[in-house]
């Protein structure tokens, strides 16, 4: 009886450990396979590879689609992150500190871009931009402000969520002390509040950047004809073929984002962010 139970327990532990590592393996397998493929010397996928080569990485320098897509994604993501933070910091301050009617409702309202399916937001904005353009002659469809505005919308819920989570832990007494010593509102914000919540700011900036940089569904509707962001360029290439070139592009993206996450982990600790 006892030995049976022990055996069962040991088996259970083994199964649990196996399931944990299988889960991690499942998460990382597709990324590792892409990394592997990017070093194949043969262009058409066949395993095992004929040999290994770095030439696909050199070849990337001539791929205008990917370079232009990367630059556009980078520009849009940087602008969207800055604008997202600029509108979210004041809103978060008020939402955390204030006790007023409708606070909960406004919080939910600002979270809405996270709940509405991205493909629906993209379709709605596409139709809206075209109709606005017809009505007012303001060219929004396929324009940079339209694309950036849509990406700012995407970053707002992430910024608000991460900033409010950080502000809750901040003791208002510290700011009151600064005020009682004669500091004015803006000085308190710049010299006391923001430095104290900077892990939240870093986290919000990182998430906003990554959410914008990686967005596919909304950009798909809003880029100008002939223009692509990096995720769209990758998708369209993959619809056509899978080869070491696209794997090399993907690898560079993985390395870039991995480095950003690793830096965040060193600076603020990933466990506090996610």
């Amino acid at each position, binding site marked *: 009886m006892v030995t049976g*139970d022990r055996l*069962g327990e040991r088996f*259970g*532990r083994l199964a649990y450990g196996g*399931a*944990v590592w*299988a*889960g*991690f393996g*499942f*998460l*990382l397998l*597709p*990324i590792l*396979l*892409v990394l592997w493929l990017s070093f194949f010397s043969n262009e058409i*996928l066949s*395993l095992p590879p004929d040999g290994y080569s770095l030439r696909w990485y050199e070849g990337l320098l001539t791929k205008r689609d990917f370079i232009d897509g990367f630059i556009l994604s980078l520009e849009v993501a940087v602008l969207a992150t800055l604008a997202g933070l600029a*509108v*979210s910091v*004041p*809103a978060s*301050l*008020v939402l955390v500190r*204030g006790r*007023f009617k409708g606070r909960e409702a406004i919080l939910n*309202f600002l979270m809405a871009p996270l709940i*509405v*399916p*991205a*493909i*629906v*937001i993209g*379709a*709605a*904005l596409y*139709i*809206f931009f075209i*109709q606005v353009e017809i009505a007012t002659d303001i060219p929004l469809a396929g324009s940079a402000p339209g694309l950036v*505005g*849509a990406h700012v*919308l995407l970053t*707002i819920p992430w910024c608000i969520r991460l900033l409010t989570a950080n502000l809750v832990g901040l003791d208002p007494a510290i700011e009151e002390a600064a005020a009682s010593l004669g500091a004015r509102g803006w000085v308190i914000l710049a010299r006391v509040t923001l430095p104290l919540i900077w892990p939240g700011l870093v986290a919000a900036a990182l998430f906003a950047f990554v959410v914008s940089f*990686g967005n*596919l*569904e909304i950009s*798909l*509707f809003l880029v100008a004809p002939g223009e692509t962001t990096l*995720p769209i360029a*990758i*998708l369209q290439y*993959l619809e056509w073929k*899978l080869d070491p070139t696209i794997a090399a592009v*993907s690898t560079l*993206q*993985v390395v870039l*984002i*991995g480095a950003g996450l690793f830096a965040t982990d060193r600076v603020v600790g*990933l*466990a506090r962010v996610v």
Partner: protein
Amino acid sequence: MATGRAMAWRRAGAMAPASLLVLGFLVLPMLLMLRYSFNSFVPGKFMVEAVTVENYVKLAADPYYRHVLGLTLTVSISVTILTLIVGWPVAQFLARTQTRHKGLLLLAVVLPLFVGNAVRAAGWMVAFGREGLVNRLLQATGLIDVPLQIMFTPTAVIIGIVSVNLSYVVLTLSSVIEGIDRRAEEAALSLGATPFETWRLVTLPLALPGLLAAGVLSFILSMNAYATPVLLGGPSFQMMAPVVADQVLQRANWPFGASLGFVLMLVTLGLTAGANWLVGRRYGR
């Protein structure tokens, strides 16, 4: 009272930019789309002003679109069940581990989330292709002679979406499991329960609201999946999100695309609200 009013104005001013952005870039476009979903579409004449429910009727009655909705629901349910099963052990391990390298383990969960669905789909294409890893391994071990067709099957799409959703589910579950008082589990263990009984009778019931939340999240993400079905399912594998994009962008059938989008959104929002209500009622927050 003047200070009270000044205070209220300052509050409104601080919240206005973010709120106006959500209003202008989300609410107004959605309202316009809702209106257009009741317009009618005449081939060759684009969109014709009307107030009709014909688009919604078409969605409910046309066998093709019923198939699209049915396929999307089937895939989403399968994905959700699989994701919860695969995700739980990882989440529990993350929540309970004492290792110094927790940051790195979290990185392993978060990195896939951030590298984009198309990149992950590319990885699965390496595994699933005719000359891919799975077929080569099966052939090397002598289990099959002729390569299996894995790409462009529901299996490939389901595996692909599971791997996309897994990160979200693991993060949601592990924060819930972290919130469970360890002493409850220790009490059960000290009273003679086996680890499995402890899990079944203590941990699982305590984590049920989180399990529901993670399940709903996974279901919603699958319903709205775009890149994974396009790349791993191929052109003939039609799920809701790719069909919405196709109707609006390629076919320029705005009224029908709008009604498809609205149904997709209503299912998503309805489920979120329903799950929140259920958790609130059952566990009274």
